[in-house]
């Protein structure tokens, strides 16, 4: 049975205090203004929230994925947009931490872990995210440097990132299959530019858009790991950092739905009694609770497996699937319960539904997750 340590319980308490003071009061305003609150990043860095799993020697908090999940759940409870901004930033740090050279770690991680700089991972192209081997961006080695060309889309932190991890095709192997390689690109590198900004259904307080490279010239020192390691970097980062983070974010939204449903049903008086005295409303509360607790167990179990170094790709797929689908159900149920109030933006429940729908693609859609789960299950 998974239980939290006393330190983890205290971490949740202090992060919750911070989020309730600094995030909750502004979350709706950020959403309505499509504003990503990057101004909070230095504070998030100081708190150890952005660099949770980065070792202390590189400026992080030196904690694990359970603690990271706690922080993301607490952020997403009030602002899933801010939470996915942090999560995408951590994709960049995860890639550098797990695959970078010592020199690259020392150069990039301290500023990223303390929130002084923002990171992103540019993997997805118009051909799709899950089919990343089909990407068209290229890297060509000419005159002792790599020349990168291509366009990435649906990139979180596209316009904010100071450090951008790119995957490109750098050739073909003897079987004619593409060789994918990853690079670290600094913000002001000539030819590296952010393009259009997407207007999304939800997660509006995060930034998503295109990033292009036109004859971007990089020294070989900017390559992450070795040529051809791109798929390993992409898969590991997406599955164990991205999907793991999205599981916790969905969990935070789900808890938001649960807590809003409890609050509303306690306060709303109908037929002279609180709404929660009606049995059908109790069913809604019970179903929201079940969805939250199920996703919570799956998320923290997967995170604790990751901390123990166990294989956990299937477990994170289960967690994200349960969290995302559970949040969609819980938000819909809660809106139904609230009647007219449910569709008024003064209440956050509509935002929770939009956020969880928009979050369904990050870290894999439910259908992709089912493929991952089935593949692992059928293998046994």
């Amino acid at each position: 049975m998974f239980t939290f340590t006393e330190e983890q319980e205290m971490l949740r308490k202090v992060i919750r205090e911070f989020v309730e003071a600094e995030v909750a009061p502004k979350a709706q305003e950020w959403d309505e203004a499509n504003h990503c609150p990057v101004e909070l990043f230095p504070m998030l860095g100081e708190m150890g929230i952005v660099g949770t799993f980065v070792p202390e020697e590189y400026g992080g908090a030196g904690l694990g994925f359970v603690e990271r999940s706690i922080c993301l759940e607490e952020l997403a409870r009030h602002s899933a947009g801010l939470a996915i901004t942090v999560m995408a930033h951590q994709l960049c740090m995860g890639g550098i931490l797990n695959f970078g050279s010592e020199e690259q770690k020392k150069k990039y991680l301290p500023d990223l872990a303390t929130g002084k700089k923002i990171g992103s991972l540019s993997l997805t192209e118009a051909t799709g995210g899950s089919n990343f081997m089909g990407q068209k961006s290229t890297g060509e080695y000419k005159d002792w440097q790599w020349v990168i060309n291509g366009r990435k889309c649906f990139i979180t932190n596209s316009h904010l990132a100071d450090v951008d991890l790119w995957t490109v095709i750098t050739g073909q192997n003897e079987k004619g299959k593409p060789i994918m390689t990853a690079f670290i690109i600094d913000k002001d590198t000539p030819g590296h530019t952010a393009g259009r900004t997407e207007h999304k259904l939800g997660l509006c307080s995060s930034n998503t858009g295109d990033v292009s490279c036109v004859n971007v010239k990089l020294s070989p020192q900017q390559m992450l790991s070795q040529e051809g390691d791109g798929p390993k970097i992409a898969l590991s980062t997406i599955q164990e950092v991205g999907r793991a983070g999205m599981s916790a974010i969905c969990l935070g939204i789900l808890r938001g739905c649960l807590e809003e449903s409890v609050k509303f049903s306690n306060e709303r008086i109908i037929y002279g009694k609180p709404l929660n005295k009606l049995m059908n409303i109790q069913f809604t509360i019970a179903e929201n609770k079940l969805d939250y607790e199920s996703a919570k167990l799956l998320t923290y179990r997967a995170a604790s497996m990751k901390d123990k170094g166990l294989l956990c790709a299937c477990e994170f797929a289960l967690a994200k699937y349960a969290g995302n689908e559970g949040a969609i159900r819980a938000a819909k149920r809660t809106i139904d319960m609230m009647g007219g109030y449910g569709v008024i933006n003064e209440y956050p429940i509509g935002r929770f539904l939009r956020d969880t729908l928009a979050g369904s693609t990050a870290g894999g859609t439910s259908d992709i997750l089912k493929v991952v789960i089935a593949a692992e299950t059928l293998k046994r």
Partner: protein
Amino acid sequence: MKLNIAVCIKSVPDPEWYEKITIDIKTKTITRKGIPSIINPVDKNALEAALQLKEQFGGKVTVVCMAPPGATNELYEAMAMGADEAALLSDLAFAGADTLATSYTLAQGLNKLGKFDLVLTGTESADGATAQVPAQLAEWLKIPHLWNVKEFTFATEQELHAKVKMDDAVGEYVIQLPALLAVSREINKPRYTTAMGVMKARKKTLTILNKNDIDVNKSLIGQVGSPTWSGDISIPSLARKGQELIGTPEEIATQLIAKLRAAGINPAKRREGDGK
């Protein structure tokens, strides 16, 4: 100049749960079962003031609390915020203490823990709100004190210049160290506790001291040492008493005014120019 600072904190029920708190009529105490505890909010301001002094001048910050064993959580949180060590004064014999017995126990605990240049507290607790402990504690310690301090600076190494909030004024004082200051909420904004702080806290020293450890006079501690006793406690009925008035609208209005007057409420007299 290194400062040895003590901060006295209290573990109080989380104010967000106040509506769930009930009073046990028999024991005349509040029922805290299932109610989470937190550090008394203004005590965090006292701790923040201590941490700022330590950052400026160096030294050590020790947090002290008299409470049941469960309050270790609040002490670890104080250490996560930045305090160097903590002491919990905990013994069944301390139970039922009023402010005088509490302040005596705290004083004996502080005397046991060492010599402090400065003792900081919050002005009052969020639950009892008597605001008596700071002054009583200073008296037991035989040191000068100020209450409701909104700002202070060092005038010399041994003197503080403090501003004290009063009803319609601000008093300015010079106070000699060692001294006790009870600080108000406006003195600072307590820092957020970081993830790194949380993880370091468990590696710091938390000492639990019982009645034998701190050399107390047993007649001055707990309920025995408390001159204040709760009187009768009753829970007022908030039920509304309805009454139907029958008649024409004018008759009902006349009856209503008569009842309001009988209850001591005088309907406003019509002023000139108010119309009919």
